[in-house]
Each structure stands twice: as C-alpha cells, then as structure tokens.
C-alpha cells in the first residue's frame, strides 16, 4: 500500500531543471514557451527549479560537446535520487546535424543515462508536454 502511495506521489510532482550543453537555443526557447500560459505544464505538477538539489527531472538540450561533458556529469551527480533525464530536441537525442563532428560526443546519452527522448528540431512545446506525460506514465507502471 505504501509503495503505491509513494509511486503516486512521485509521478504527480516532477520538478524540472534545464541544462543547455552547446545547442543553438531553438529548443530552450520552446521549453520556456511550455511554461507560458498557452501550454502551462504546471497542470501536471511540473515546476522549473533553479538548483539540481531540488530537481527530479533534468531537461537537457543541445548536443554534448566535449567541453560541456564534465559540467553535465557534475550537475547530474548533484541531483538526489530518484532522478530522470529528458533529452529535448534532435541534438540532445543524437547530436542531430552535428553528428560526426570532432567536437561533439553525440547525444546527451553518451554522458548521462537518459529516460525519455523528445524528437523535433526544435521540439514543439506540445511535444515536450507529451513526452513528460509519457515519462510519468512509464513510472506509474514500472
């Protein structure tokens, strides 16, 4: 019984932290739009937090450049368990159009484990919301 309550609480209030590792900031603007009145992700209990200590979900944008690898790792380690990572946009998923460049390691999943990939270049706000809701569903029946 307690297990069900904990699972319910965890899926109903995911707090997010935004991290950009070198992208062209198309996705960052769309993430901000997801918090604006027109799309309003707070309906699912999602809030944007300023520090990794308070966050459950790390929203990553941009391909993982070599320079930003240790920074992403450090922020990931500072987040308390249980934590999840959402890769927003094609760059965070696989490095998108920069794949194969000497300065790009690939998607963010080469640096930190990723739970949910949201496609699109840039990912539209409604796609971001759909991804987050699917992540919550995945938690519910895991």
């Amino acid at each position, binding site marked *: 019984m307690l297990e069900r*309550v*904990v699972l*319910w*609480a*965890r899926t*109903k*209030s995911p707090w997010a932290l935004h991290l950009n590792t070198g992208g062209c900031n198309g996705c960052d603007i769309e993430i901000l739009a997801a918090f604006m*009145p027109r799309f*309003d992700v*707070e*309906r*699912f*209990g999602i809030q944007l*937090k*300023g*520090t990794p*200590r*308070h966050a*459950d979900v790390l929203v990553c944008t941009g391909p993982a450049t070599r320079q930003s690898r240790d920074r992403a790792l450090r922020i990931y380690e*500072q987040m*308390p*368990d*249980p934590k999840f990572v959402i890769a927003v946009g094609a760059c965070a998923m696989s490095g998108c159009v920069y794949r194969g460049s000497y300065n790009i390691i690939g998607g963010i999943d080469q640096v930190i484990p990723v739970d949910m990939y949201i496609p699109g270049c840039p990912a539209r706000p409604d796609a971001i919301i759909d991804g987050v809701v699917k992540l919550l569903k995945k938690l519910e029946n895991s």
Partner: protein
Amino acid sequence: MAVVKTLLYLFVYPGLLFLLLYSTFCEWVDRKLYARFQNRIGPQYTGKQGILQPIADFIKLLVKEDIVPEKADKTMFHFLPVFGITTVMTAGLYLPLWNVSSIVPAYNSFPGDIILVAYLLSLPTLIFFLAGWHSTNVFAGIGGVRVLTMLFAYEVPLLLAILGPALLAGSWRLAEIARFFQHHPSLLIVNIIGFFVGLITLQAKLERVPFDIPHAETELAGGTFAEYTGRGLAYFRLLTDIQMVVGAGLLATVFMGGFPGGILLGLFHFIWKTLIIIALLSLMRAGYARLRIDQMVEFSWHWLAPLSVIQLAIVLLVKGAL
C-alpha cells in the same frame, strides 16, 4: 474528561492534524489562484482539480534521497527543520479557536499571548538564516544574511499593526480581543490601515514575491534551502505553509473579529476568514514583480512604519472618544 479534551485539542483540532491538512489545502488554494491570475490553470490532475498536489509534493520529497554536505554540521542540519515546524505549530495552538475559556487563563490563552504568537511566528526567520549558514554553500549563506536584513525591515511594522486592535480592545489576550470586536463590529473599520500593513508584512515574513529576495536573488542556487533535499526540504515547505495559515489566523483574530461560536461554527469562521486573507496574499504574489533588497528595506521604512504609527494614533484617538 479534561485530559481527553486537552489531548484532542493538542493533537486533532487546532493542533497537529488540523494544521497539517489545512495548510496543504491553503497551499493548493494559493497555487490555483496564482495560476488563475496569470490565466493559467495550475495543478489539475492530482486528485480532484489538483487538490492533492501539495500532499503529492510532500510525500515525494519525503522519499527522496537525503544528501547532507560533508562539511555541514549533521545534527544541526537535520534538527533545524523539525524545530521550525514545532515553533510554528505551538504558535497555532494559541489562536482562540475552541476550548478557550474566556475567564480562567489556561495554557492556551493567557494575557499576553499575542506577543508570544508574534514571537513564535518570527522564529522561523532565524531558522532560515541558520539553515543557510549551516549548509556551507556560499550562496545559501548569502541568502541567509539577506533573510536577516529583511527581518528588521518587516518585523517592526507587523508588531505595530497587530498592537493597534489590542490597544483598542484594551487587553493583550487574543480571546478577549476577538470577543471585544465581536461585540463592537463597527470598530473593525478603525483598523483598516493596520490590516493592509499586516497583510504586506505577512507577505514579507513568508518570503513570497514581491519579497522573496533571499530565494530569488540567489535563485541560481535556490536560496537558503540550496543544500536541502528530501526530508529537510519537505519539512521546510510544510513550515512555510503552516506559517502562512497561522499568520492568516492571527490577522483574522485581530482584524476580523476572531472565530465566535463552538467547535463547528468557530471552524467555519476560521476557514472563510483565513481563505480571504490567503486570496489577498495570492493576489499580491501575482500582481507585483520582485523588489530588490534595498528597495524592500526602503519601502518598509518609508511607507509601512509611518502607516502603522498613524494607525496607532487613530486607535488612541478613538479610544479617547470611547
């Protein structure tokens, strides 16, 4: 029989259980109103209309991993949030809700308990400062120092505003103040300035926008609670919720004539009066942008303090005329 009543008083009605449930309900009201003011919907899918959202946040934080910075003092780090909640809960006991005998001074209502409640409500500010100082994160320390600088700005006007009605009613006992204004409801209008000063300073005490300077200024590092995760953070959020409820209850007792009637009627009055105050706080939170620390201090000394002194002058005049 009296022992059962006291236990009931301590643990169920105005005590532990009621405060916990009611403060989560108030947080939900606040978040919903705040969202509606920004023509958003706010929490929607946890429970009916998102009413269980604060409870979900609380439980989630309870089960999260609890990271303690290694240089921080372990006992202090864990002890502070719990100590904060106890101070605010005891402040909640002194609101004249139920089982308050008007003649014989009992443990939950005695002459001078208004000063005790005001003091207990301002203790959490000191706790925030210590929390920031003990978490050895430079930014949290800075946030803590700013919490203290804000304390001096809003504490004096708040006390002056509360003392206005106490002077008018001629007693320091919350129960008697409430009863006085129940008998002369027309005198409530006299304290209208004090009511607004009280509202603004309560907003500052709760460190909510436009006065959330310690958090916002170091928003990048999450303010005084930067290092708290899991249980500590859950307790601190609960602490601010209960502080909001008890503060609103205090303002309702002093400025809106308390909660007449027995257990049920008193509860009904308590709920609708505190909800009005919380709605006003939420309106303030949505309406204003964030002030800077020097603007906040200047605002309180240029406007709030003189206003509350004028309020006291009016009260003395009216008292003379009575």
